[in-house]
């Protein structure tokens, strides 16, 4: 059964259904419904909700619970996520799995409380100090937020690494119908091993030796080896966990790259542009890291240009440029600081980049060209058919067939000419109308 839920509430419920039993957080808009919901639900499932004294405390509590093998989550928004970076770096270093939600708001500094995507660099490049990455998942609907939150716990456990859910504020605040039937009581992925590395106070055995949760490696050679081991995990994540969605890219001359709520606005703009005959498609990264570079590269043979749309001054556009590697122009359109791009702004940008003209006279010219081409093609067809037929050795015996073929070809040609003439007439009519309008306007102008 479907239920109308806010993204924030849906993420919290999805986490609980995926076995998350510890939540530590500190309030900040626009993610407050997550801790609010957790404060109500955690006691009902025998879990622990704790509002900490600060973001720094919350992330270190996550470190502790994760180190003991529990499924644990924290959530915050941009300024709060900045505060958590030290802890996140420690958690990565100690190879502890956890899920971190960032409902991004405008920055820098305290910024504003309205939605943004300006934490892309921070999220995809690690954010804290040291050589590291987090898998970053970016939902574009409330239902997808449920799926990705649950997958995040599996990915975190699989690689013993934090996973970030990055929403753009709108995802947290928006209400949409959600089906939680599939999500309820979700079991961990079957490939996941028992957490024998966890510090549970167990008696050390050969199978599960004494557990130490640590990110300090004083000997540089040992640390380099550790970083190489982490890198192997990142390579494995890049190979196995990359996700994206493609929409109408097959014939797209302009390929747009957008994620989260921005991709929804782009989708509406695409519908409008497709109705005008503009060949535009979209690649929506679902994982921001690993970035779906291969998917973008696969469109290079058919795409003429790329456009990256973000709620930032341009961050993901760097990854698109790295993927395209100079083979095609990559343009950018963005709003930031809590401003959200509108459908019409994006439509305008698409028209500009594809050279679409609203001018009726130039449209009539294009139709005229199409008509001439159609007539030309039809005549060319006749010539080719006659040529082939005359050269054929069975020419003499097949007069009957020839007659029929000639009739067919003639019909085709007539059809082509008729189509051409129709297109020509429509084009000319439109042009005449436009001219009339212009004259009318001029007349009106004269009266004034």
């Amino acid at each position, binding site marked *: 059964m479907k239920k*109308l839920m806010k993204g924030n509430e849906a993420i919290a419920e999805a986490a609980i259904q995926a076995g998350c039993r510890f939540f530590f957080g500190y309030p900040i*808009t626009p993610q407050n419904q997550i801790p609010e919901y957790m404060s109500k639900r955690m006691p009902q499932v025998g879990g622990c909700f704790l509002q900490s004294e600060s973001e720094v405390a919350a992330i270190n509590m996550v470190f502790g619970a994760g180190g003991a093998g529990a499924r644990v989550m924290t959530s915050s928004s941009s300024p709060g996520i900045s505060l958590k970076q030290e802890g996140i770096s420690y958690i990565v270093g100690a190879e502890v799995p956890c899920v971190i939600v960032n409902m991004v708001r405008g920055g820098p500094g305290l910024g504003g409380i309205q939605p943004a995507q300006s934490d892309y660099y921070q999220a995809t490049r690690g954010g804290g100090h040291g050589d590291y990455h987090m898998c970053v998942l970016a939902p574009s609907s409330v239902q997808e937020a449920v799926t990705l939150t649950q997958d995040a716990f599996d990915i975190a456990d699989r690689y013993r690494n934090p996973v970030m859910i990055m929403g753009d504020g*709108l995802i947290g605040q*928006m*209400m*949409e119908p959600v089906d939680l039937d599939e999500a309820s009581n979700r079991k961990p992925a079957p490939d996941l091993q028992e957490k024998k590395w966890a510090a549970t106070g167990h008696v050390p055995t050969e199978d599960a030796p004494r557990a130490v949760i640590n990110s300090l490696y004083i000997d540089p050679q040992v640390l380099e080896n550790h970083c190489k081991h982490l890198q192997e995990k990142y390579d494995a994540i890049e190979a196995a966990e990359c996700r994206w969605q493609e929409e109408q890219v097959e014939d797209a001359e302009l390929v747009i790259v957008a994620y989260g709520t921005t991709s*929804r*606005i782009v989708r509406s703009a695409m519908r409008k542009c497709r109705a005008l005959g503009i060949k535009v498609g979209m690649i929506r990264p679902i994982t921001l890291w690993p970035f779906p570079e291969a998917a973008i590269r696969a469109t290079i043979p058919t795409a003429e240009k790329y456009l990256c749309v973000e709620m930032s001054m341009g961050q993901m556009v760097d990854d698109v440029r790295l993927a395209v590697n100079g083979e095609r122009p990559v343009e950018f359109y963005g709003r930031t600081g809590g401003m959200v791009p*509108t*459908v019409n702004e994006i439509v305008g940008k698409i028209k500009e980049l594809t050279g679409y003209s609203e001018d009726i006279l130039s449209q009539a010219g294009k139709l005229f060209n199409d008509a001439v081409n159609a007539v030309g093609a039809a005549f060319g067809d006749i010539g080719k058919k006659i040529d082939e037929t005359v050269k054929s050795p069975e020419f003499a015996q097949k007069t009957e067939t020839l007659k029929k073929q000639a009739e067919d070809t003639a019909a085709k040609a007539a059809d082509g000419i008729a189509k051409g003439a129709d297109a020509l007439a429509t084009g000319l009519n439109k042009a005449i109308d436009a001219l009339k309008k212009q004259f009318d306007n001029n007349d009106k102008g004269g009266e004034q």
Partner: protein
Amino acid sequence: MEKQFLVAGFGGQGVLLIGQLIAKAAMRQGYEVSWMPAYGPEMRGGEANCAVVVSDEPIGSPLVSEPPVLVAMNKPSLVKFMPKMPKGGVLLYNATLIDGVELRTDIKVIPVHCNEIADQLQNARTSNMVMLGAIREATDVVTQENLIETLRDWLGEKKAAMLDINKQAIIEGEKVVKG
């Protein structure tokens, strides 16, 4: 079919609830829906609005920047959003609280005396339900029966006693549009 609504007013007028009930009722009727709030940090008195999209296909943008249907519960909302409406749009406004605004002539305008009607019903808090009834009648986005059932669910058992007065307010709002 896609219908877009922008419901705007000040915090405390129940504008977010108007939008939520439209979205919930439309969802009950099998449509795809989205509800998107926008409000400041204030508990009461600040600007508040919500965008509702109802569609029979998956919804693209959940935002409504050029509202074909604008519901303005107070004057600042009307002044702010009326210029953004497309030609032929439908404007429903709370005529009790709004006057002295030059209204556009290229849109359909429906004045609703929300607070006066609510006062006549002897429950000032139902003014948003009066408007909800007017929206339903003017746009036919959901059936009356479905809207009342959605309201019954929303009130739940604890507030079941409030159903009648709110239902009455919805019906009075519908009457305004029927004329």
